[in-house]
Each structure stands twice: as C-alpha cells, then as structure tokens.
C-alpha cells in the first residue's frame, strides 16, 4: 500500500465517520472498497497496516447519526477486515461484530428498511465467512434466520445477494450435514463459491452447523409450494436459490438434495403454474449440469421431473420447457427428441406441412396446441420460441430428429410466405392461427433469423433456389421494415456463403436480385441503404463459388453481373447524405477491389477516379466514420498488393493519405494513418538489422555471443537503409510519426511512440559504427516547421537544430539525433498507462474525499453554489 495513502486514510476515516459527511460522488465508497479488496487479496492484513479502520468501523456501527450508505460501506468493510483471522479477533474483542451483524440493532433505528444497509449486511457477512471462527460466529448468532428472510426481500438486489450467500453457506457446511459423509465432499463444491471466496480450511462438525444446513433445507422444502397464488413469487425465489445451489453442487449434494426435495418438487411440477415453468426448468437443468460423463444414468427423480415438465397440459409451458431443455444440449436422446417434437408442433399446425409424421406423443397435444394458437399473443410467442430453436433441431443426430432439415427449411419458408400473404393458408394448416401471424413483424424477424441459421445445417442446399426466391420477394416487398431487410440480406449472404454451388440460381433470379439491390440502394431510409451497401461488401468478400459451367467465380460477379452493377452503386453511395452509408460504401468498395489488388492488376481509369473521390472525402467529409473507412481502404489496398512500389497510383495516394490523415481531427483516423505508416515502415525496413515487424515494444536483442559479420553487413545494407529512410521522409512518414507523438489522444501518441522506437532501433544499430560522413548524410536530415507539434519538438531539441537558410521558420534536424533526444522509452512508459491513472488512483480518491469534505464545509460557510449531480 502506498505510504501516502496510509497517511491519508485516518483523516478520510474521520471524514466518513462524521455525521452528514459529504462525499465526492456516489461511486466513491464502492471505489474505496475496491481498493481495500485488492489490498486484502494481496494477503496483507488490513488492520495491521491501517489500524484506523477498526476505530472507523466501531464508530459507524455504534453511531445513531450515520447515513445508511456509510453504514452499508462500514458493514462491507467489516466483512473484509474480519475475513482475516487477526481482523476477526480484533473486531470481536470490541464486540463490534456482535453489533454490526445484528439486524435487530439496525432495525431499532429504522435503518434496516434501507435496502443498502441490508445489502451491506449480506455482503459483509458473506465476505467474512472465510474461516472457522467466522462460520461459528454466523452459526451462533443464528444469522441464518434473517438471511432466509432476506431471500424473499422486496429488493431484487438484496434477494439475489441473500440467495448467493445461502448457497455459499450451504457449500461450506454441506460436508457436515447429518447423514452426509464428510469424506464424500464434492469436487465442485469444494473448489470455490460464487463469491470467489475460498472455503475454510477446516470446519469441524458440530450440531449447530448441521442445524444451519437443516434449516436451509427445511426452508427450501416448506416454502417451495405456494399455498395460494399470491405466494408464487416466493416459490420463484426458492427455485432460483435451488438452481443456484445445484449449479454449484457436486453429484453427492445434488442427489441428496433431489431426494430430500423430491416430494415438493414433484408436487410443484404437477401444479402446472405457468410462472414457475422457467424456474423449474432452471432447477432441472442446473441438476443436469452436474451430471458427469461417468454417470451413465441420470438421476431417476430428475428424469421423472423432466418428463412431467415436457408433458404439461398447457402448451405454452410445455414449449418453454422443451426450449430450455434443447438449449442445454444434454445428451438425453429421448427427451431431446421429445423436445424437438414439441417445438416443431406449432410450425406443423400453422404451415400444414408434415414435420412430425406418426409421432404419437404429439397427437395428444395437438388439439390443446391448436386451441392455444388461437390466441394471438401466445401464438406469436410460441412460434417465436419454436423458430429460435429449430435450427438446433436440424443439427441433431439423424435418428433423433423428427424430420429432415430440408423439410424444416420448407416450413420456415412457408411461414414467411404466410406472414406476408404471399401464399394462401394450407388446407391442412389452421386458418384461425394463420390470421394471428399475418403481418407480424416479430414472427417474420424470428423466421428470417432462423432461416439464416438453418443455412449451416446439412442437406439443405437443395432448398437454395426456394430460399433465394423468397428472400428476393422479401427484399422487394414494400412492407419490409429496415430490420427485416437487414435480416433478409444477412440470410442471403449466409446461404450464398455456405452453398459452394450456385449453378441452380436461374438468370431470372439473378436479374431479380440485381433489380431489388438497385432499388434498395436508393431507399429513403438510410438504414436500408446501409444494409444494401453492406450486403454488396459482404457478397464481394465471399469465397469463390461454382457456376453452372463448372468454373469458379466470385459470388458477387456471378449473381450481380460483376463490377458493372456493384461498383457504380457503391460509387453513388459515396455521396450519400448519411455518413454511415458513405463509410459502408468505402468499405464495400475495398472488398470489391481486393481481388484485383491481390492479382496486382493495373488500376483502371474508373479505379483511379474512385481514389480521387476517396482522397476528396478524406479532406472534406465532415464525419469521422467515412474518413476512417477511407483510411481502411488504403490500408487494405497497401497490404493486399503484392508489390506496392510497382503501383504509382497507390504510392502517390499514400503520401496524400498520410498528410491528410495525420492532420485529421478524429483520433481513429489518426490511429489508422499510423497503421498505414507502419505498413510503409515494414515494407521499407523489413530485413534490416534491428527492425522487427509488428513487435510493439523493443526489438529482439541480438544474442551477446552471436557471431555477426558486422562489417560486411553494414557495407551491404547502409545505402539501402538511407534510401529507405529518404523514401519514407519524402512520403511524409516522419511528420506523421512526430505529429502523432504529441497528439492529445493517448492511443495516437502510443502508436506513434512505438513506431518511432522501432525506427530509432533500426537507425541507431546502423549508424553507431558509421563514419562521420555517413552520419551527416543529407538523407538523414528532415525539416521541421515552427508551429504546433514541430514547435514542441524544437523545444525538446533545444539549440541542437539548425535553421534553414532559405526559410527562417523551418529548421532542419538530424533524424538520429531527433529520435534519441525525444526520450521515447520514458514517453512510452507514460503512454502505456491509462490516461486517467493519476486521477483514478486510490490516492487521488482519498484526496478527493478530503477535498470534498473541506469544500462542503466552505460551501456551508460561504454559501457557494452547490455542485449538483445532474446529467451528462
């Protein structure tokens, strides 16, 4: 712990313990506690280093005037201090613990009504339960009773914290439970609890501890069943707790819990309360999750519970249970198959397609399901759950799934058509249900998502044409909202991406797609235009596909007729009024061009015009998104081109990009400019001694005993290096790095600093043994202006620079001197740290607490304007 902090802490404690203390803001106490927690985790005794804490806790706990937030903090701190045995003993000696953790004490002053005091009590207590004495204290104080009461507290936060602590207590004491053999400790429960605290090394078995365990279990057993519907909330809370315990318990505790709670659980399952379906499934799944690979047969109680849940009367609950079980991915084939059938049933009813041929269990449920589907709300809800899970069904083992994946795809397509009125309801389907889904945006979005996910199922490529046809219809439909259109595009990209053979797509379909993309590229809504442009980019980025003539072709080219359609649309989108669309257009153009760049094709006139437009955008676009995208375009171009120097257009553009990018006002544009500068450096220096590509900090040091032909190396490489440096300076790289170094945004400064260090290493290793003639080679000099960042550099360099003879405002500096004088390593050290590391430090926090208190006193005496916490 920082010595300054230790010296500040007693005064801070006095401030906090004083009535009506004023805090800097509502986060201060939590941050202070974070600091104590970190400190305590390092293994040092809090009380030993900060004896003032004991006095603080004692004062607050016995004060009648302390504010509830301070009491809550003091309770949490008490737990932290008492988590160490010496702290516990010290606090116990003063009877502070008896007072702090006695709810009655807080009730007397009405403070218990404040949820933050109850939270403080739970968290403090929970933190303290690290050792035997603390646990004994918990048992002897009979704290289990208030804790159990808090489990159904009116505050969500209190109830949740109480549940977590109860689970923690049970995990700690489970080996001592009567009838539970101490040797039979579960691996899982002995590791760590949910609060991340270690279990006590040894807890001796005694009756009191067993009584605590019994009390928890009895509580679970007796309160689980609601006596009337108003008690459902309580049952929900109990089930949440049970699920939490089961998720942490090992097989032994799990089995015993299930055995002990079998009766109420079975009764509860039979009661068919819809509100309890989800929590009950959470309990079952939590128990399932603790089944280990070597346990061949799951617990019969569990199987029974699950069976009842999957055979509930109410279709709505049944479908929820099936969805939860399917999601859990357990290897229980019977129930998995059953869940799949339950989930497919609404789809079968509504589309009239046969998905569950000859399935007897489903027949029993069909009538009830049909009835439930008549209600619009539950119909939409059930269909959506079904759609969300059916992609998983198609991934099940063939002998387990109720029907082939292609049939499921057909059902989803049929549903989408029904929703849009694109086809009449099937005679087999239920017409009343059909009315419920017609026009439902929610169902259509879910169905489109399902369609996307179904693309990765096996044996579905036969459906490609049908999928294509429907999605084009969706893209064309005037009722499609922006989200639906986006999802339609996403589905289309997914299907094209997985279907390596697009030969089945007819020319008519291709024509339709082209038409609809053209139409949507000039939609009134920017969201639609953006999704269209993004689609074009994604399409261009897809791998080559097979065509009808057997050849391989780019999907965009094959489906949209290549650049003659895509590029003009994207170029048009560069002028879109919405910056997001302009940015997407630039990115999509880069994806479209990547192929030709990789092949090193000479740029066409059209491409050169695009470059001009992009450079114009970089200098004139008012929005950062578009300018960032331009930078990314050039980065992609530079990194995908096999030989950048052979493309004059690229190299020429890079110089302008560097110049404009480094002067940009957007920090991300500047960072991307430095990314581009890094690529330039890599290209120029790769292979040079001392230069390491992409290594962020220091280059690898050569082995001290390595034999290197230094002389020969220098002779052969020297001229290359100076040429490379000269080239980079002419490209403007040095200005980019130096201006970045003094930038006010930390990521920019950091990136520039790292690149300059790399430059420094390569230069210094080369020039250290060189003759003076080399050191004064004009190629090692650059010019600096007298404004802005250059002025800062001149200030750093002092008098060592020399004024330019022709322009008095410009100075010429030696690059080697420059990079050594800038003290880059120290700067890197600073930049690597967070920009707020001083102001967000514990010491700063302690100072702020003291200053806030002083300012508050001053405000009171001078009636200064109060700084009110409002908004930002």
């Amino acid at each position, binding site marked *: 712990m920082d010595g300054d902090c230790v010296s500040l802490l007693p005064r801070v404690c006095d401030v906090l313990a004083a009535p009506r203390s004023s805090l*800097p*803001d*509502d*986060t201060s106490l*939590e*941050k202070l506690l974070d600091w104590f927690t970190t400190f305590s985790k390092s293994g040092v005794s809090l009380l030993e280093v900060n004896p003032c804490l004991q006095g603080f806790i004692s004062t607050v706990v016995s004060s009648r005037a302390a504010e509830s937030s301070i009491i809550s903090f003091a309770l949490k701190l008490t737990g932290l201090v008492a988590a160490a045995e010496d702290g516990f003993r010290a606090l116990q000696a003063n009877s502070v613990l008896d007072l702090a953790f006695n709810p009655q004490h807080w009730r007397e002053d009405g403070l218990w009504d*404040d*949820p*933050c005091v109850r939270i403080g009590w739970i968290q403090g207590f929970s933190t303290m339960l690290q050792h035997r004495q603390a646990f004994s204290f918990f048992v002897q104080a009979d704290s289990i009773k208030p804790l159990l009461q808090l489990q159904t507290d*009116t*505050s*969500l*936060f*209190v109830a*949740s914290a109480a549940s977590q602590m109860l689970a923690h207590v049970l995990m700690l004491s489970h080996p001592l439970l009567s009838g539970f053999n101490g040797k039979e400790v579960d691996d899982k429960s002995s590791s760590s609890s949910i609060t991340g605290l270690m279990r006590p090394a040894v807890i001796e078995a005694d009756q009191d501890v067993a009584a605590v365990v019994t009390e928890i279990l009895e509580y679970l057993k007796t309160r689980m069943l609601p006596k009337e519907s108003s008690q459902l909330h309580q049952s929900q809370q109990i089930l949440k707790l049970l699920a939490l315990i089961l998720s942490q318990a090992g097989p032994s505790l799990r089995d015993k819990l299930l055995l002990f709670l079998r009766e109420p659980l079975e009764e509860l399952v039979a009661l068919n309360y819809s509100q309890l379906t989800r929590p009950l499934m*959470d309990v079952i799944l939590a128990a399932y999750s603790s089944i280990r690979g070597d346990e061949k047969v799951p617990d019969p109680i569990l199987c029974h519970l699950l069976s009842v849940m999957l055979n509930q009367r109410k279709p709505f609950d049944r479908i929820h249970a099936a969805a939860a079980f399917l999601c859990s991915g357990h290897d229980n084939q019977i129930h998995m198959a059953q869940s799949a059938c339950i989930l497919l049933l609404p789809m079968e009813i509504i589309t009239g397609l046969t998905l569950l041929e000859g399935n007897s269990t489903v027949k029993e449920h069909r009538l009830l399901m049909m009835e439930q589907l008549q209600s619009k709300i539950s119909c939409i809800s059930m269909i*959506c*759950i079904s759609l969300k899970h059916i992609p998983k069904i198609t991934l099940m083992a063939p002998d387990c799934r109720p029907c082939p994946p292609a049939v499921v795809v057909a059902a989803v397509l049929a549903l989408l058509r029904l929703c849009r009125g694109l086809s009449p309801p099937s005679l087999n389907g239920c017409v009343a249900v059909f009315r419920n889904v017609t026009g439902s945006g*929610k169902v259509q979005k879910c169905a489109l998502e399902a369609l996307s996910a179904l693309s990765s199922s096996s044996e579905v490529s036969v459906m490609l044409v049908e999928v294509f046809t429907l999605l084009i219809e969706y893209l064309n439909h005037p009722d499609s909202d922006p*989200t639906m259109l986006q999802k339609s595009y996403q589905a289309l990209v997914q299907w094209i991406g997985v279907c390596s053979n697009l030969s089945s797509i007819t020319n008519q379909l291709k024509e339709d797609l082209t038409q609809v993309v053209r139409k949507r590229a000039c939609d009134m809504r920017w*969201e639609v235009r*953006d*999704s269209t442009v993004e689609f074009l980019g994604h399409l261009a980025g897809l791998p080559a596909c097979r065509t009808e003539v057997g050849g391989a072709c780019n999907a965009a080219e094959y489906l949209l007729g290549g650049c003659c359609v895509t590029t003009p649309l994207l170029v048009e989108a560069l002028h879109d009024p919405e910056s*997001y669309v302009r940015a997407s257009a630039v990115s999509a153009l880069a994806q479209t061009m990547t192929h030709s760049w990789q092949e090193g094709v000479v740029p066409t006139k059209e491409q050169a015009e695009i470059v001009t437009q992009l450079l114009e955008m970089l200098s004139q676009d*008012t929005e*950062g*998104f578009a300018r960032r995208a331009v930078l990314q375009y050039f980065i992609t171009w530079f990194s995908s081109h096999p030989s950048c120097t052979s493309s004059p257009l690229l190299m020429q553009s890079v110089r302008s990009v560097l110049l404009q990018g480094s002067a940009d*006002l*957007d*920090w*991300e544009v500047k960072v991307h400019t430095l990314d581009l500068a890094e690529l330039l450096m890599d290209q120029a220096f790769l292979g040079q001694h001392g230069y390491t590509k992409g290594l962020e900090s220091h280059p690898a040091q050569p082995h001290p005993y390595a034999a290197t032909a230094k002389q020969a190396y220098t002779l052969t490489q020297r001229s290359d290096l100076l040429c490379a440096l000269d080239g980079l300076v002419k490209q403007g790289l040095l200005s980019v790095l130096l201006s970045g170094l003094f930038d*006010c*945004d*930390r*990521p920019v400064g950091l990136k520039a600093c790292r690149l300059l260090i790399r430059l420094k290493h390569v230069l210094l290793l080369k020039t250290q043994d060189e003759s003076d003639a080399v050191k004064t080679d004009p190629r090692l000099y650059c010019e600096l202006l007298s*404004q*802005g*960042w250059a*002025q800062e550099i001149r200030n750093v360099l002092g008098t060592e620079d020399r004024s330019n003879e022709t322009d008095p405002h410009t100075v010429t500096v030696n690059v080697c001197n420059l990079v050594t004088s800038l003290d880059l390593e120290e700067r890197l050290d*600073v930049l690597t*740290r*967070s*920009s*707020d*590391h*001083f*102001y*967000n430090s514990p010491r*700063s*926090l302690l*100072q*702020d607490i003291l*200053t806030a208190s002083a*300012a508050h006193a001053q405000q009171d005496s001078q009636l200064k*304007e109060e*700084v*009110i916490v*409002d*908004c*930002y």
Partner: protein
Amino acid sequence: MPEIKVTPLGAGQDVGRSCILVSIGGKNIMLDCGMHMGYNDDRRFPDFSYVTQNGRLTDFLDCVIISHFHLDHCGALPYMSEMVGYDGPIYMTHPTKAICPILLEDFRKITVDKKGETNFFTSQMIKDCMKKVVPLNLHQTVQVDDELEIKAYYAGHVLGAAMVYIKVGSESVVYTGDYNMTPDRHLGAAWIDKCRPDILISESTYATTIRDSKRCRERDFLKKVHESIERGGKVLIPVFALGRAQELCILLETFWERMNLKAPIYFSTGMTEKANHYYKLFITWTNQKIRKTFVQRNMFEFKHIKAFDRSYADNPGPMVVFATPGMLHAGQSLQIFKKWAGNEKNMVIMPGYCVQGTIGHKILNGQRKLEMEGRATLDVKLQVEYMSFSAHADAKGIMQLIRMAEPRNMLLVHGEAAKMEFLKGKIEQEFSIDCYMPANGETVTVKTNPSVPVDMSVNLLKREMALGGPLPDPKKPRSMHGTLIMKESSLKLVSSEQALKELGLNEHQLRFTCRVPLQDPHSDSETLHRIYTHLKSLLKGYTIQHLPDGTVMVESIVIKVSSSAEDANAKILLLSWSYQDEDLGSFLSSVLKKGLPKM
C-alpha cells in the same frame, strides 16, 4: 386487481444512470438505458441479469424507450442491444436518433483513452444498434403492438428530449425523462396533455431547489468571460460535443456581436459543423424565437466561432475555446487545460457536473495542485468557475407538470434520496396522491382500477330510457343491467333476449331449491298456513298466495311442507325459486330458518 410495477435498475434514489423497468398490462418496457461515467468497469452499465437471465431480453421486453441523448440515459444501449443481446424495438425521437451516435462515439473515445476499460462497444455496434431504432414524432401515437401504444411529448431539456405516454388498455404511465418547464435560449418548455396517467414517473434532480432565472446565470457567465478576455486571459470551456455547447455558443455569439468583440472563439472538436447541422435539421424542436428568426438569420450559423487547431493554444492574446471532453477526462480539453493552468489571467468554466476520477471534479472541489507525470505537479493558478447550465425542472416545475398531467400516483426517480423525500411530502400534501421513490432494485406495485369500455346495444339503451331514467351523462355514472357478450376483442352489453339470439342459444329456466328444517308441532297444512300468515305480515307489497295444491307462492318462489316419518314435529320446508328471484329466495330461506313466531 390489475397492477403496474415499476423497478428502477438505475436512477432509483440516484442520478447515476437511468434504467427503469415498467410492467403494465402484461407488457414489459424499459425506460432509458443509461451508463454511469464514474465507473470504469461493468458497473457503469445497468445489470441486465436482473431483467431476465441468460440474455433473453428480446423475449422479455416489449420495447425500449430512450428519452434523450445524454449518456446517462442512452449510454448502455449498444452494450445492451449488441453485447448482451436485444433485438426488439427501440424508440426515440428523430433528433435523439441522429445525435445519440455522436455522443456514444465521444464516450467510446474516452474509454479507449483510458486503459483497462472492459466491455466497450465498437463503432459498428453503435451503428447496428441505431439501425434498430424506430424514430418517434411528437404527439403521434405509435402502436408498438396490438395492445401497447406510446406517444411522445416535448420535454425541453436538450434537443429532441421527450416525455413519453405509455398506454396498455386503460392503464397508462408517463415517463418524463429529464425535462425543463421554463424555455431557454434555444429550447421551449415541456408540455403534456391532461392525460391522467396511473403513474407519472418524474425526474427530481432539483427536487428541493427553486432555481434562479437562467438569465442571471447567463449574465454571470458572459460577465466572467468578458472580464477574463479584457485582461488578456484565455477562457477554456470543457463541453461534450452536443447540447450545452450549442447553447453557450449562441450566448457568446450574440454577446460578441453586441459588444463588437474581436477575441477569437474556437470550437475544438471539429464537431461544430455537425452539431449545428443537427440543430438546423431539427429546427422545429427548438423554441419559438429561434424558429421565427430562422428565415432571416439562422442562429446556428456562427460568425465568430471558428474551428480550433491545436497550435492555436500557444497563440498569444485572449481567446475562448470550447473543447471536449466535458469533464477534463483526457484529450483536447485536458491538453489545453494543462497549457493554460499556470496563468492566473486564464479561466476555466465548467458548465456541468463532473464525476470523481476526473480533473474537472478535482478543480471544482477546489484542488489547486494536481499531480502530473514524472512526479511533477501542476499549479492551478487559473480561475475556476462552475456554472450549471443543465436544464432540469426545479421543484416548482415538477409541481407544475403534475398539475398539467393530473396523475393518480407519482413516482420520483433521478434524484437524491433526501431531496426526493422532501418533494414527496410536498406532493402528497398538495395533490393528495401517493408518491413513491423506490431505490434501485426495489419494485413499486400500484393497483389500478381500469375501466373497460363496453359497447351497448341501442335496444337496451332505449329500454332503459323507456323506464324514465335520466339521459346518459359521462359525469354521472349509473348501473345498467344486461348480458355482456365478448366477441373477439370487443365487449358488448345487450338484452338477454338479444344475447340468446346473437349467440344462437335456447333459453332455459333455472330454479334453485333448498330444504329448510323446522320444528313445528302442527299438521303440515297448518304449518303451511302459519308460513303463509307469517310471510304475509312480513312481506308487504309482494304477491303471496296459498294455493289449493298445498303450496305457498311468493312471486316465483314455491314453498312446500313435509314431515319426517320418525318425528311428526320435524318438518322439512322445500323452497324453490327462479334465478330472477335469487335475492328474495335467499331472504325467505334465511327467514324460515329462524322458525315461525309462536302463536
């Protein structure tokens, strides 16, 4: 009884980050999704696991409504929609939708600048989130689904800020977000219909304050800037990209014009153009004065305010600079501050609140020595001024809004507990309504008594009129009898004959019977006669007959007597009546149970 539940996950007795869950008529709505700038970890966002676990937000929530673009109201939105996973509809006004991404980007920049930040979203995520947003127009009722409708009202506060009226069936809630009841230089005052919601959820930042006129603060601000400029000093005003910055720009621009001042004013982020573009675009959202003068001169086309270049900071002479971010977290505002802090002629004006852990917070608290890199300290010699320009309703304004909306219950959020407590007392006293102030995580449940609209058949109405009753008057409720038919989602009250006809049902007569034991030492016929006499004396004005078939009839009620085989004195009375006479039948059975009067 139906109920509305309100649970704040944020803004419950604090001003950290607004996020309020409302359950109304089976619909779940999230009001605002803000972030707390005071934390660097997950605690800055609301804990969505309390909404529903395992990322099932889309299944649980019917919609999310964002009141305005401030980060404590929308900062967690991309985190929720793109990282936790929410795919449902998000509603906000057009200006909020346009401006929100700018401020989210502003925040993203701060998080990147700080190291060790976790869970921050990318630009792509912000865009994808914004694509899910459905824009709202003022006073336009938007149907979220068949049952849930919402309507936005003007809230003042910042450009595009809205209050929202949420209605499901006959239950309703109004959420104010942040609002301002007095017009300022560029925005108007909040306004709402007399919509009488079941609950009005109102912010209460200035719950105990009656704020002085904003004009005074503006005068004070201009005076301070002017004095500093006059003595050759430089003035730094740290701001967030949008909002207060524009208000202060208008103020300075007008002042410079009037005083013919020459000192340059700069706006540092390059966002002036963009921000002003939005103010121009959404001119209808500004106040009347700006809208009126817009044709002659657009207030947002600044003559004196120029873009800032970092090299200008070293220029000699006075100047005023607006720089981001607003709390001197990092970036340009901090860099300029460091340069200027050592000169007592200079001044920094903090126009809003700063969270702990920022230089803004430190200097506002009066710290004059700031720790810098390399064990250096920065002596803060420049003048530090705090002037809150935030536009919130004060205590008077809140009461004014209650008078406007006439809610049945009041719920306070976005304020400090002690201040809320005071206002709660005042509201309960003045309006005689319940006022709640839940802490975060606590649920307030308000029972509602919804009125269900029912159509009535003309025949039934005519029949009622024929009976001579008064004409229907909405102010004088009265009871009507008929048969209620529920068909699809409509309710209709018709005569029973019409109901039978419409539903294609046959009429059946329903009779109730009951057996009453009676001790009477007479023959059966005498007992029957005694019953007849007794009832005749008891029930005046009813038709009571002693029929020759050994029964007594009172209206439709038939009474017979039989005696037990074992005990001739133990009589069993059989009563039977049609359902129309249910009341009279029950009455007679209870009378006869008491026995017959002695002779």
